[in-house]
């Protein structure tokens, strides 16, 4: 099966989204770096093979997997039931809290202040779907989806958006870069925690099993905490859900 194939071939090819700091991004030499990049490298090490990072934007993740261009997705992918009809997910390897980032000029101090404003998020993401529903429920203001996280923050700093909801890690990372003057993280968004998982082909049970154990081992060995501290910092989010098995 695929697990054997990977070991036999000697390379593990990971789909990683590279405009999603700090999970995936580029350094000044335009080389890939970030949490997901390290995570893939760890997985390759565990398998005893070398890692190959394949840059894959959000919409491209599934075709890349299906075509066999990549073996595993380490791409901050929310494990929705809808998607699980198409691909096979591991247990969650990361969890995002949602944060509100606003343009200082808009005077937004909290999630509820966004009512009536123009807000946006990355098209098709967990938070975009939730936020769009919220704007509809408020009945005023406007919701805009952009293609990439970068475009969202560009629009935010240009003042085209008054606020955005994104994963708190991403929000912090973007504000920290200093690329976007005049924006700040102003609070949490009351959305459910967004659990993201590794994925591979739906029928590769052997590999999925391996991935599950790998995620577990990363936590046990403290590597998860180490990476979290390196790329994100702060309180380590729990990856288990109270009162449920997985």
């Amino acid at each position: 099966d695929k697990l054997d194939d990977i070991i036999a071939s000697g390379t593990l090819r990971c789909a990683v989204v590279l405009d999603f700091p700090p999970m995936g991004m580029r350094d000044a030499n335009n080389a890939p770096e970030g949490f997901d990049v390290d995570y893939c490298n760890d997985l390759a090490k565990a398998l005893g093979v070398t890692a190959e990072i394949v840059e894959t934007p959000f919409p491209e993740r599934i075709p890349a997997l299906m075509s066999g261009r990549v073996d595993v997705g380490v791409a901050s992918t929310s494990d929705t039931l809808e998607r699980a009809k198409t691909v096979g997910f591991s247990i969650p390897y990361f969890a995002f809290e949602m944060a509100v980032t606003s343009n200082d000029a808009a005077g937004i101090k909290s999630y509820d202040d966004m009512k009536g404003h123009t807000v946006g998020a990355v098209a098709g993401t967990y938070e975009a779907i939730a936020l769009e529903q919220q704007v509809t429920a408020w009945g005023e203001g406007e919701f805009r989806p952009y293609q990439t996280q970068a475009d969202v923050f560009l629009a935010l700093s240009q003042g085209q958006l008054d606020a955005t909801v994104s994963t708190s890690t991403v929000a912090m990372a973007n504000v920290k870069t200093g690329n976007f003057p005049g924006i700040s993280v102003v609070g949490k968004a009351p959305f459910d925690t967004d659990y993201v998982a590794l994925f591979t082909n739906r029928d590769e049970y052997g590999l999925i099993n391996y991935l599950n154990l790998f995620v577990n081992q990363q936590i046990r060995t403290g590597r998860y905490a180490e990476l979290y501290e390196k790329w994100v910092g702060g309180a380590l989010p729990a990856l288990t859900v109270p009162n449920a098995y997985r």
Partner: protein
Amino acid sequence: MFGYTFQWNQALARLPKMLDGAVVTMEVAVLSMLIGIALAILLTLLRLSGARALRGIATGWVEIARNTPALFQIYMAHFGVASFGIHFSPFVSLLIGITFNNAGYLAENFRGALKAIPETQTRAGRSLGMSQLQAFRYIILPQMLRISFLPMTNQMVWAVLMTSLGVTVGMNADLYGITQDLNALTFRTFELFAIAGVLFYVITKIITLGARLIAARLFRY
């Protein structure tokens, strides 16, 4: 034969939503054409006018529209002009981008059409006491639009296809935007985009057939 299980009914269940998107796509295309034609006529006149500056602006418009990617023009209409503090909504940005493109291409067509109309036509009109503007309005313009009718139809098809670029400026109400959102939701990439492709195909065919009918009615000479 394929190692892939098609799930058409899942995708087809979303057809009504996609049809809503098709309506928005048509709205953008039609508006951009109407405004584009008006602007193109203006540009054509400016390019004929004596004033150097006006001619320069019109020529610049036409050449930029024809020599840079449409995606660039739309992206510019949103993120580029925002650097001056001018903000347009995604719908307006897309409309501006496509209209800019339409006007440029059509103006070039109109200029070619004008060349095909004998100069003696204006003379004949002027000799009947018409003003320059009247001669243009009643004699040159109708003939120009007729000669340009096929290019205009093609441009209309282009306008429809160009709406797919709206997603880059945050547009998600049009056919392509909706398809993309649905794809993010379900990951049924192939099925959803195949349906979108068919819808686009049908729209363009309706436009070309419609144009043929209109032409048959309109141009009896």
